[in-house]
């Protein structure tokens, strides 16, 4: 489903992503772990082209992300409309929720259906109501973000991302801004999605959760993949780097 080949991205002279290759089959969850500054979030943002990348390829379902299919040295960016379309099929949930503060929870979930997919408002609202129910927030659907707790906001954000019926869901440290109780609400929703077969790439610090839910785990450091493999690898790390990282978490 998602193929990343020899990806490189730099900010000026700093190489943030330094030759990463990754494959995420359909229906699986890929967890990305690593210390701060390792490029995890940037990797995710390249997948939906919120950040452009210079070298390498990212393909979703065979389609090249961000650039036109030309092959050859000089790449031409896709027209903005296509980039927007591809983004809508590859929804992202952010660490800071990023809900639209002037709309209710329901409107947040529905707005993209109306504006991007051009659905009539009644249909959009119905679908949105269904998704809000799915994440367990029917009672709060008419509340504004300022009045929702962090965990509730994040669940709305997930519902909003799901409204677009994406091929892939990108999760960028979605529980890092939440306290453990609130985080648990959100993790339950994500686990349910995984069971339903949603293809996801999840950047997270929740190592235990990653072990439970992911089929493949990638450990990144300084822009490169240090180790990758099934969750079991976390119990028996091969590299010293990963061992050091996990030591802080006291995994038995």
């Amino acid at each position, binding site marked *: 489903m998602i193929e990343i080949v020899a990806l490189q991205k730099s900010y000026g002279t700093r190489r943030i992503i330094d030759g990463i290759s990754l494959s995420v089959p359909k229906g699986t969850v890929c967890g990305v772990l690593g210390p701060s500054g390792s490029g995890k979030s940037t990797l995710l943002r390249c997948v939906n082209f919120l950040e452009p990348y210079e070298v390498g390829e990212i393909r979703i379902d065979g389609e090249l992300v961000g650039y036109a299919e030309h092959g050859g040295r000089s790449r031409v960016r896709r027209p903005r409309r296509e980039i*927007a379309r591809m983004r809508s099929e590859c929804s992202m949930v952010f660490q800071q929720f*990023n*809900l639209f*503060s*002037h709309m209710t929870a329901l409107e947040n979930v529905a707005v993209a259906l109306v504006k*991007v997919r051009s659905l009539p408002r009644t249909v959009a609202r119905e679908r949105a109501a269904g998704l809000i129910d799915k994440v367990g927030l029917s009672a709060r659907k008419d509340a504004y*973000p300022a009045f929702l707790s962090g965990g509730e906001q994040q669940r709305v*954000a997930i519902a*909003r991302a799901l409204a677009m019926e994406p091929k892939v869901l990108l999760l960028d440290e979605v529980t890092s801004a939440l306290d453990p109780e609130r985080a648990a609400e959100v993790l339950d929703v994500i686990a349910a999605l995984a069971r339903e077969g949603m293809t996801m790439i999840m950047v997270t610090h929740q190592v235990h959760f990653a072990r439970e839910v992911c089929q493949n785990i990638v450990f990144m450091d300084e822009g490169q993949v240090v180790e990758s493999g099934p969750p079991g690898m976390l119990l028996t790390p091969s590299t010293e780097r990963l061992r050091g990282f996990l030591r802080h978490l006291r995994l038995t």
Partner: protein
Amino acid sequence: MDGYHFYFAPIWAALPDIYEATGVAALVAVTSMALALAIGTMAALAAEYGGHRVKVLVAVYVEAMRNSPSLVKMYFIFLGLPSLGLFPSPFWSGVIALALHNGGYVTEIVRGGLAAVNRTEVQAAASLGFGWLDTQRSIVLPQALRYALPSLTNVGVEIIKDTSFTSALAVKELFYLMTALVSSTLRSFEILIVFAGIYFAMTTLFAVAMKLVELRTPWR
């Protein structure tokens, strides 16, 4: 001496004229406000998202408007454009002058409002597949304008007051009528009270209405 003997009769007699003049003033004000808002918002967006040259153009526009009185623009349009073959009516000379002049202030105010919107919400919209125009229309501008509302209200009040300048172009609005009545009835004191009262009522009602809008936004 009308110190003790207030004599309002000539004013009652002129009531239909006063009605009409108030209507004209209100029309000038509302039209100018709408145009100023449109001009200012577009200029602010252009300055935010346009290239360097556009930013400079907008800055020149703003400075050209802020550093001269609106009367100058009115005369320029009404008395100056005929030399170029354009003959705007007194009404439109006044309205366009007020719109351009106050559009400069609106530009700066809306820029402030734009800056107050969370950049992260724009990213969220992008990740959902929103295009630029939709993002501005649905996400950014509603919030930016709401943040800018108090300052915009001040500009609105100034516009209402500055409609009195259009009397110089012989637009039959309140101040024009005021001077006409005084010269015909010499009841300057009573007339002053009534007309000042009308202006005061207009500005206060407008400010209160805007405040209500401000308070009634449910999303803080």
